[in-house]
């Protein structure tokens, strides 16, 4: 059985054959030092094009969270789901689902780590993604 692809290879690089490990990636500006999550052509802060590929790691802290009870159309996951806004050590923030955490244990400031899960294709209302599973980055409490 083949391993699904990264949901966005410009944001998540899979680092093992089983597709269970990976790292968030982006760019760092050589002029001002700011890091950007995901694709960039120019620096978001100073507009320099002197960017270098950067490994943004697999840990962060929870900046905010919400328990989504009414999901967007075509949402492929369980309901409710926890959406976490996570700050990376290099500064950028990353929105993703928080898993393996009781709702009552969620707390702003808690350390989280990357979790990678295969997700089925969303039931898009039009167009669509071709129906393939993708490896999606999520967050879980650190050390869980």
């Amino acid at each position, binding site marked *: 059985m083949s391993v699904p692809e990264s949901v966005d290879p410009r944001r998540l690089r899979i680092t093992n054959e089983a597709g269970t490990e990976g790292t968030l990636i982006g760019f760092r500006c050589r002029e001002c030092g700011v890091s*950007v999550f995901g694709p960039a052509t120019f620096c978001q802060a100073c507009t320099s094009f002197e960017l270098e590929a950067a490994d943004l790691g697999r840990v962060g802290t929870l900046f905010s969270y919400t328990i989504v009870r*009414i*999901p967007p159309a075509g949402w492929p996951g369980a309901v409710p789901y926890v959406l976490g806004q996570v700050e990376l050590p290099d*500064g950028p*923030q990353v929105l993703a689902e928080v898993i393996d955490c009781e709702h009552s244990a969620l707390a702003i400031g808690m350390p989280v780590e990357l979790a990678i899960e295969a997700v089925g294709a969303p039931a898009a209302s039009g167009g669509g993604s071709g129906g393939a599973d993708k490896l999606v980055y999520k967050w879980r409490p650190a050390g869980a």
Partner: protein
Amino acid sequence: MARLRPGREVVVVGVGLHPFGRFPGKDLSELALEAVVESLKDAGVRWRDIPIAYFGHVYYQGMSLGETTLSKLGLTGVPIVNVENACSSGSTAFWQAYWGITTGMYDMALAFGAEKVPRGPVTVTPDDAPERYIGGDHMMAGYALRARRYMEETGAPVTALAQISVKARQNAALNPYAHRKDTYSLEEVLQSRLVADPLTLYQCCPTSEGAAAAVLCARDALRGYGIDASRAVSVAAAVLTSGEYNGRGADHSAFSPYRTEPAALQAYEMSGLGPEDVDLCQVHDAATIGELQQIESLHLTPFGEAWQATVEGRTALTGDIPVNTDGGLLAMGHPFGASGIRMIHETVTQLRQEAGPRQVARARVGVAQCSGAGDVTTVHILKK
């Protein structure tokens, strides 16, 4: 920040509104035309007098909708521009009309917007975007993240957020154009269905249908068109911005809760007015938390304190900074293309002292602030 160079004074001379709500028997053009015709009548001009028109709308319902709509008023050959700028599409159309006149290209312009928003949670990315797998593209979840963080940082209780919905409905009950006219209690707001904690259904604006229009004119051209100058309302500032780097980067527009501040500062500079001069404002309250952070971004209260002003009743019609006097997005509903011009309509109505039972006591300077995905922000300051 770009230095803005307005030229001659521009005034709003006519406004029109189609009620907001659900109108299954009418298409988008029919909604829009009713608002346009009302604005032309209000201004006392004819369609053939209008040299340019800008039409704000978002959802695709055929190409060149502005041309299709206005052709029913007569084919006059004037330029008609279709404007898409997310929830700020209408206010962006107004902004373009202002700058077209103040710089001298045109003496008069029509700005109008209309929308029939589909039901259900609003998303901004294409159907095949990674966000659809990740779950991060959900407008109200974005507001919920802001709300949770705001409550953590300021100590605001969830009842302060709910109070904004209560106020919105009280104002809308006095407004025949509103989508939702029935009032409700704090408990009813808090006990309505959870959308994304801590936001309940009644803390989120309904998706709606509706239309709004405004006619703008150079003050020095009023006499030539025979327009009544006594009802004209001056546009003291017209500012449009997109996202500015905020130190955090972003993969979603929800990350910039105070993105309105740069636009507000430009608007104050352009108008020579300050927060202390503002008598009332209409702000982008797609969810309750939005109203708080917009008020703070406009410097109408210190940061982190708008929730207290709300609890104390200062943002009610009878308070010292009345906010969303017509019910706002929360009670008017939110037809994207129309909302920004709906705010202009309410501001003009208040400054003309024509708001009837919801008229605020002192109304000389009004602010209309509208946000949209892409960190779009418009701030307009109107003055009588």
